[in-house]
């Protein structure tokens, strides 16, 4: 099995004593879909940004981030070709993914800007192949019918799906998603997670941070749990029982990590990624 992401002994301080990440090590294999959970402020975004090369780690000599077998940053120093390496990583943020005034198609096509000549970008002369790719990507997330609409006309969940399409046009090998379903209603959240799961089924490596553990259990075989910048759990999502979470986070915090009331909770993982609607039995 080949390694997609390898994080070794990474710590990160933001101008304060408290570590946003402390001594985090993590390996994600190609084709995995891994959930990253933890309460607000536990360091999920920080870790994802470090992996994407958007943020430098502390300068400790042992700290290292490898992506697809190449070193992206080491000892707080970004690799020289970080921009090229970044192109292999598609990033989906919680908000501000799209440019409201532009069309959905153009927003999607922006994923190709990194690899086409500057002057083509300036004049908006995208390659036909990229246009096809963009339409395909929109199709994959079920958004092709909105291609000519302005991005501002989409709902939050639709915007996230277009963001996934944009990331795809970048032709990445890895997709990182930072709380893509926070502030979405359950139905939209399900569609966004379905889109990510579909990608994963076709072989994409996906690392997705989630505020709520139910989605991790439903969609990802493996979960990494962070608490105050420390990895407190890394293993099968199925073993994350409410009791286990209580032990990791304390009863009050743990109870806040569920999107749905406790009688809906299912601890079984759908192994083949065919997912039942989350709240169908509510």
């Amino acid at each position, binding site marked *: 099995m080949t390694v997609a992401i390898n994080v070794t002994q990474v710590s990160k301080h933001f101008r304060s004593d408290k570590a946003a990440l402390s001594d985090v090590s993590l390996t994600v294999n190609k084709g995995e879909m891994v959930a990253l959970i933890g309460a607000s402020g536990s360091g999920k975004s920080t870790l994802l940004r470090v992996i994407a090369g958007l943020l430098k780690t502390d300068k400790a000599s042992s700290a290292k981030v490898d992506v697809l077998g190449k070193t992206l940053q080491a000892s707080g120093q970004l690799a020289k070709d970080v921009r090229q390496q970044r192109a292999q990583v598609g990033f989906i943020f919680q908000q*501000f993914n799209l440019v409201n*005034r532009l069309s959905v198609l153009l927003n999607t096509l922006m994923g190709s800007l990194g690899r086409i000549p500057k002057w083509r970008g300036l004049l908006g002369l995208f390659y036909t192949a990229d246009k096809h790719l963009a339409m395909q990507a929109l199709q994959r997330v079920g958004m092709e019918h909105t291609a000519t609409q302005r991005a501002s006309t989409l709902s939050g969940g639709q915007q996230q799906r277009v963001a996934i399409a944009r990331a795809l046009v970048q032709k990445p090998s890895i997709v990182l998603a930072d709380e893509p379903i926070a502030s979405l209603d359950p139905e939209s959240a399900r569609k966004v997670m379905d889109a990510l799961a579909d990608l994963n089924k076709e072989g994409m490596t996906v690392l997705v941070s989630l505020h709520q553990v139910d989605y991790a259990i439903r969609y990802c075989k493996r979960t990494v749990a962070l608490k105050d910048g420390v990895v407190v759990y890394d293993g099968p999502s199925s073993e994350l029982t409410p009791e286990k979470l209580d032990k990791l986070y304390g009863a009050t915090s743990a109870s806040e990590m569920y999107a749905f009331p406790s009688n809906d909770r299912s601890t079984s993982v759908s192994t083949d990624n065919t997912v039942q609607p989350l709240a169908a039995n509510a």
Partner: protein
Amino acid sequence: MTKPSFQHSRRWTLSWCFVAIAAVCLLFADIRITTYDPWTELGRLFSGLLNLSTVGLDDLGFTLLQTVAFALLGVTLGSVCGLSLALIFHWRWVRIMCALLRSVHEIFWALIFLQFFGLHPLTGLLALAIPYTATFAKIYAEILEEGDLSALNVLAHGTGNISSFFYARVPDLYQHFKTYTAYRMECGLRSSAILGFIGLPTLGFSLSTSFMEGLYGQVWVLLILFYVLIATMRYWLRPSLLPLYLIASVFIVNNDTELSMTNISRFFTHDIVPAPIRNGESLASFWQWLSDLLMTQALPGIMNTLVLSQIALVASAICTLLLFPLVSKQFFGRFPRSVGHFFLVIMRSTPEYLLAYILLLMWGPSMLPAIVALALHNGAIIGHLVGRYSDELVMRQDASFGLNRYNYEVLPRVYGQFLAFLFYRWEVIVRETAILGILGVATLGFYIDSAIQEIRIDRAVVLIIITALLNLAIDMVSRRVRFWLRVKTDLSIR
């Protein structure tokens, strides 16, 4: 089945409309460089920076003091009268009167007052105070209105009483008034300096003298002192010192010109009366006089003013779009930004009239100097505002860099605000275009100035009124356009 295509927005359509209009205007515009060796002259101007000289500038201090004193008195008077009018601004006739007074440029006011006050300080004082009163009245009224709204909110929600409104709200309002008045004071300094070009003893007078004699070392001394004066304004202009300054100013601007009642009454009873009526000719000959004036002067003047201003508007837009990245955090680090800021502040502080004057000397008479001057000055002003607006934008962290960032991330997000700022300046650009005629481009100001030179005040007054009406019309259209685009401007630009 045909796919629905992307609906272009109003701002897109509108932008191309204005570009098309400007392109058509270019066909009619007189754009060329007529001087024999324009770049050598420009080179000589800049080499003046290397040998700054105050020789022959024995009245340097006097000039600067006059400039500041006129600005202080004019703006203060305007501010006081403006505040009083703001309280009754809901009266329709007050609003109409203010719009009319505002639409006549301070230079035109000065040209009128020169006719009967001569070089008496009242000329400069009123030329500044009248249009500034009208502007202050409008903006103060808007500030008060916003204050009233929040007062109503306080009362409606029962979260406070009237006295708490006064304690909470008045300091806030005062801050708005102060900020805006300080901004206008900066404009006042520029206006006051420019009045020198038509004969008042302010900076423009010394500048034009030094220019005429080709003493560029002196020109730069004057300009640099002027920039320093504006840049340091917030240090020397303290509200607590204002009374002292005002008293001193009265003494500074005072001269021994006497007001002549005969001149004044002759102006109103004789000079401004249309010649045919003055000479007791028939009504028919008055119509002849009027239609002559309209056809041979007003109409070409209006055409040229519109042609030049539409080109200048689009040129300002292009300038803005090129300049704002220089001061935006989205594109540059601290040091390059401060260089950008320096350039923009210089361009902003240099009145377009002065810029046009300099360029005209270098390039000779045509529309080109006026267009470049208007584009640089307004581009710097709007560029500063757009740059500041772009600093606040939030975009995804892996957003692209450089040209792609400009094109795909920043521009779509700032464009609406940019158009709002630009169309707010539209009326200002038209007003300035008319004025630049005094420098020799055949806009309305040219015909007004010529009429005054020929002591045909009756014609000048009619042409000034026509100019004012044109400005009012543009103001109305621009308000329509901004409403149609659904864009809003904030206080900082008004």
